[in-house]
């Protein structure tokens, strides 16, 4: 069987030597190299479930009277988009599970990308020759976040409508081009009728195609450059140590895919997510409270909430308040992410190719900077629920906001400094783990 298959392919494609090389390709076994794969598989799940959903969803804001089997909304005027999501959730067999798997997979997709990015950052895997894949990766993260937002905006429920309204305002806030941008993207003043249909095209065609293409490029480059590897016995700059693609690595990887799918299926079956029937259909004069976006938008939401009531006004023009937290901050964030490999190469004057990874302690400055940056965004993330925290602690929201404002500026330097000292101490003491490190190594790293 195998013989005949190989001969058949070889006679037509001359593929034998490629196949031999490919099947024997060695992949390192470290678990942290699986995180990127989790993101890849989450994307596959998103495509599979998304295709199913797209067969039922109607991207229109035309009004209909809801007549499905969810009683509290029967007889209510809703948009066709909302109506079709309700139908999917209540009257299409397996529809709700598909919807919920899709949403959970989206959360996982972006989470896995973020963790993968952290792994790449803290181990220095972005260094030459892997800058191109870093850039593709950052673009994938950006597209993932964007498509997550367009996706949860589609059902035209009260929560997502609120998100779209804020998005319209953010677009408006851009100097010079803001009004035009908002009107062209939405088709007019909020709430414009065209937006849902447009989001649908963007969400199910344009962005997924871009993500798919970039993933292909990401993997092709990875294939060509081969994996990085952690330093260890027998591992050098000129080799790769691990399992062969076929059969061991392939079996492991397929197993991982199925495991990721199983976890999202379990979540999709048992843990409710985005219950649009509880939010109700979108009405421009209503708002859901409390209103928190999906987790990956939390840092922008938190920044919007923490931003003091400042804005720039001069010569009768203004740069409105939302511009700073919601346009400037994300802009700088992604600019720095894109530029990082080149910035670091410039600071360290290290232009050599690297295939062996750093341990976090090997580069205390980079590790400290990364930890401080993560702290900054984590505080912003939690600030997105300042109203819930205030309610929980029974204090005024203003108090919570003030504390967060202090934390967001104060905590990152502290964390950065502590991490820096820890890494220095760990490096100087030569200890394997934190727990084996003598305290004196942290306090007097020089000795």
């Amino acid at each position, binding site marked *: 069987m195998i013989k005949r298959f190989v001969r058949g392919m070889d006679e037509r494609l001359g593929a034998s030597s490629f196949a031999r090389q490919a099947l*024997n390709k*060695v992949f390192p*076994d470290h678990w942290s190299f699986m995180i990127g794969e989790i993101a890849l598989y989450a994307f596959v799940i998103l495509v599979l479930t998304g295709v199913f959903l797209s067969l039922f969803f109607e991207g229109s804001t035309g009004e209909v009277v809801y007549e499905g089997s969810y009683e509290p909304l029967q007889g209510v005027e809703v948009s066709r988009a909302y109506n079709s999501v309700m139908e999917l959730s209540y009257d299409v*067999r397996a529809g709700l*599970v598909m919807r*919920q798997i899709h949403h959970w997979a989206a959360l996982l997709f972006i989470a896995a990308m973020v963790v993968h990015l952290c792994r790449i950052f803290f181990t220095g895997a972005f260094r030459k020759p892997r800058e191109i894949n870093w850039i593709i990766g950052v673009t994938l993260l950006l597209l993932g976040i964007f498509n997550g937002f367009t996706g949860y905006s589609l059902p035209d429920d009260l929560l997502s409508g*609120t998100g779209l*309204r*804020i998005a319209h*305002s953010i677009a*408006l*806030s851009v100097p*010079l081009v803001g*009004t*035009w941008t908002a*009107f062209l*993207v939405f088709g007019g003043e*909020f709430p*414009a009728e065209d937006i849902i249909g447009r989001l649908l095209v963007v969400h199910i065609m344009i962005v997924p195609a871009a993500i798919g293409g970039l993933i292909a490029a990401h993997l092709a480059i990875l294939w*060509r450059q081969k994996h990085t590897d952690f330093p260890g016995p027998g591992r050098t700059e*000129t*080799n*790769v*140590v*691990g*399992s*062969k693609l076929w*059969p*061991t690595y392939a*079996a*492991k990887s*397929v*197993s*991982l*895919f*199925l*495991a990721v799918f*199983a*976890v999202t*299926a*379990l979540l999709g*079956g*048992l843990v409710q997510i985005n219950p649009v029937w509880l939010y109700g259909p979108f009405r*421009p*004069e*209503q*708002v*859901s409270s409390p*209103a928190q976006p999906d987790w990956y938008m939390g840092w922008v939401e938190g920044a*919007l*909430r923490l*931003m003091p*009531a400042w*804005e720039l006004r001069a010569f*009768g*023009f203004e740069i*409105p*308040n939302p511009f700073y937290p919601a346009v400037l901050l994300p802009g700088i964030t992604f600019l720095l992410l894109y530029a990082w490999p080149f910035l670091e190469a410039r600071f360290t004057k290290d232009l050599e*190719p690297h295939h062996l990874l750093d341990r976090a302690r090997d580069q205390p400055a980079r590790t400290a900077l990364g930890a401080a940056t993560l702290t900054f965004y984590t505080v912003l993330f939690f600030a997105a629920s300042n109203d819930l925290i205030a309610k929980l602690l029974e204090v005024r929201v203003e108090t919570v*906001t003030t504390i967060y404002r202090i934390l967001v500026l104060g905590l990152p330097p502290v964390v950065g400094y502590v991490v820096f000292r820890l890494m220095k101490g760990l490096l100087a003491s030569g200890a394997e783990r934190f727990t084996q490190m003598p305290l004196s190594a942290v306090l007097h790293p020089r000795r």
Partner: protein
Amino acid sequence: MTEPNEIEAAGTERNQQKAAVRWIAIGFSVSAFASLALAVVYFLGGQPQLEGTLLAIALGGIAVGLGLWASELLPKGPFVEGRKTLHDAPVDRHEAEAAFEGDPEPVERRSFLLKMLGAAVAALGVAALFPIRSLGVRPGRELYKTHWTPGARAVTRAGTPLTVNDLDVGGLLTVFPEGHVDAADSQTIVIRLDEGEYEDPPGREGWAPQGFVGYSKICTHAGCPVGLYQQETRELFCPCHQSVFKVLEGAEPTAGPATRPLPQLPLGFDDDGYLVATGDFTEPVGPGFWDRDHD
């Protein structure tokens, strides 16, 4: 000759393999049963929790089986593969450069032609951008005005006009101009205050007849409906980013990221005793934009 401990080692390995095979088989069969059960559940009308759980077991069973197969039975290595330097030899590079150069003896005015080509492509690019203009209407005046006109009756979303008696002191309602209950930009919050506690801000005398004050319901921060009112403090809250507006002081923001007060709608009562607007808002409602002051 084989040493006895080698025989023993081979024996335990065989036992381990046996155990692995057993567990892998169990994983696959559990998966198959779950898939069958899934089909039955679906056939009987479906049930989300069961569907999710069974699907998870069906997928998880194969995942476990394959994972064990890979880790226990398949060749483990570690295998070592050489890593060639990524770059090619210098001659290759030079040849690639030469190939890029293309024509080794370019015509004299090649750079001129290239510039012209660049200009043509750029012009085509600009022309190709114009269809983007079709996506939306011109921003124009729309952001500066709403549907409120002098004498427009204030009605609820259901279209009911209001008289003095329809709102008690301390109560509030969301109103629209009659005939435009779908106009999101015109949504206005009307609060009835005790006439004694409220004083018109300068320049807005007579805008709040009998304690009826109207403010745009669109938050000046990022446009959410300012949906929450606290009667004890006479404050309007925006649930989106927690801006607070003082109703007794012209809806000035006192907390949160909002920088401007909610615009006030001049109100009155018409001859039939119905609540009306006596004009449009005197400034753009809602979130800021760069030329907001250039009406």
